[in-house]
């Protein structure tokens, strides 16, 4: 190692002092952070493979076992709502990778200690979180829309021999676009939870609890107010946007539900930002 390099190399002063680096620089830095950790890239790849792969698998299984012993009810369901079937399997599981990734993106900063380097560089703190959300949001939006349209085309192509569904059918384009929007907001929702909890295991548990367990628990509540609570839960409300058909007794429209999901996310981000500013790093 170059123990003698110090004096000569220190001579080279950094030019252009004083001018504050702008938000664009922070976005660039967050992009470097995301792309330079292999697990992040693997998780994103896993998201694509799981979502499209499961859509293909379940569509193929349904078509190849059409008219099986227990098929009539299932086949009827697919015929009634082919888009719901296509997104049901793939997104149902694929969304969990997004939850994990969103939480990890911020909690690993705490577990590895990078948060100290990050906050020394951006002592006002919230611009760092904002830049992270912008970078993650853009990456997710592009990838999630690709996955949503990919799932739809793969699923509808495989189901084609039994049921024909096209983007031009009523509500289908909205549902497909909506699937991408839903997954994007879900990622930011998870990041917000991570920024509040700061611990990976806790953050992931809570996020997945909200997505998978809370709707089941709310479903056990007595009917009238249970239904109201259920309708306004983040995942329940948010998922309406990728469904073509309104179910009977549905309290919110697709976009209203998505709006509720966005409000949840903004509230959690507000709490996360407040805590980021208040807490010792």
């Amino acid at each position, binding site marked *: *190692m*170059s*123990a003698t*390099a*110090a*004096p000569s*190399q*220190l001579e*080279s*002063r*950094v030019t*252009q*002092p*004083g*001018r*504050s*680096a*702008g938000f664009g*620089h*922070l976005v*660039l*830095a*967050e992009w*470097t*952070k995301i792309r*330079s*950790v*292999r*697990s992040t890239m693997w998780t994103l790849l896993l998201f694509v493979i799981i979502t499209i792969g499961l859509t293909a698998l379940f569509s193929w299984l349904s078509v190849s076992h059409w008219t099986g012993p227990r098929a009539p009810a299932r086949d009827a369901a697919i015929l009634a709502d082919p888009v719901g079937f296509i997104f049901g399997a793939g997104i149902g599981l694929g969304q969990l990778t997004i939850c994990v990734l969103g939480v990890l993106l911020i909690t*690993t*900063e705490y577990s*590895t*200690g*990078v*948060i*100290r*380097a*990050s*906050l*020394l*560089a*951006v*002592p*006002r703190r919230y611009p760092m979180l904002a830049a992270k959300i912008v970078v993650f949001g853009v990456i997710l939006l592009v990838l999630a829309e690709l996955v949503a349209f990919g799932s739809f085309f793969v699923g509808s192509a495989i189901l084609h021999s039994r049921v024909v569904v096209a983007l031009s059918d009523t509500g289908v384009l909205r549902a497909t676009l909506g699937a991408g929007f839903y997954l994007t907001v879900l990622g930011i929702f998870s990041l917000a939870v991570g920024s509040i909890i700061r611990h990976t295991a806790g953050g992931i548990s809570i996020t997945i609890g909200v997505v998978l367990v809370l709707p089941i628990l709310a479903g056990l509540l007595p009917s009238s107010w249970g239904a109201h609570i259920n309708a306004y839960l983040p995942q329940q409300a948010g998922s309406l946007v990728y469904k073509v058909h309104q179910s009977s007794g549905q309290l919110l429209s697709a976009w209203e539900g998505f709006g509720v999901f966005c409000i949840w996310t903004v509230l959690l981000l507000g709490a996360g930002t407040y805590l980021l500013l*208040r807490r*010792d*790093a």
Partner: protein
Amino acid sequence: MIEVRDLTKRFGPKVAVDHLSFTVQPGRVTGFLGPNGAGKSTTMRLILGLDHASGGSATIDGKRYAELSNPLRTVGALLEANSVHSGRSARNHLLFLAQTQGLPASRVDQMLDLVGLRDVAGKRAGSYSLGMSQRLGVAAALLGDPEILLLDEPVNGLDPEGVLWIRNLMKDLASRGRTVLVSSHLMNEMAVTADHLIVIGRGRLLADASTEEVIARGSGQSVRVRTPDPDRLTALIEAEGGKALPAGNGAGNGAGNGGEAPVLTVTGVPAARIGELAASASVVLHELTPQLATLEDAFLELTSDSLEFGHLTTAGPARESTDGSTR
């Protein structure tokens, strides 16, 4: 210049930093000394805005850290705890830091050359040795070519060559008029590196003086005594209000002289008086040597006083109960 005024930090009932005031001047290496849990790291984190102060202020050239634009170009910090993602390479770690400050990527390679990590710059930081991690931390601290450097235990885990490298680096930077604050528990390292010392114990200022002054302050106050009858001599010395402790490792009692009488380190009683006491009680002495205090002695003296003081005040035990939460 770093100015700390009345700085206080409480973690629940524990006071980690207690109305601390000092100034770190440019152009010299300032050593920041204190026993574990004294509040050194917490003070540095408060200066850097990572922790929020419960009271008082810490400013850098008159501004709070959070008010600095492009802070890494003003202040470079190496914190004791690791701040690198184990899955990220050294180059990418430095690159994202450089980008936040609007620094060119060429600066990253310059720093990698400086600390000698160029060859492993693309490898995961998790695969680095402690010494390499420490070099990466130094590279991050120097990235913005800052006027002010805060280094928390920088020689931790470094081999002798690395220790020498850090020492020369700090002296070189100070000679160029930079402000260098370096914490350490290695007193001998500070004795040869630091021009000025700030010593704290239990979050309070114990000394803020030049290194020579701190050493001189403790000078001549300890006496090395070798006697076959240490128990009686200890009792005599304690009756005089002094203290006699068996000499610890590294205090010069040497290995391989097992047949010789045990050595005591006496403080609070001058050598001549020890001789008189021994003679009057007929205690045999094999050796009686006044010791010139090293920085280590001076430091132990300062901090043991602070511990005593802490126990005398009623808050003492309660504060100790949550020790270790200061990170």
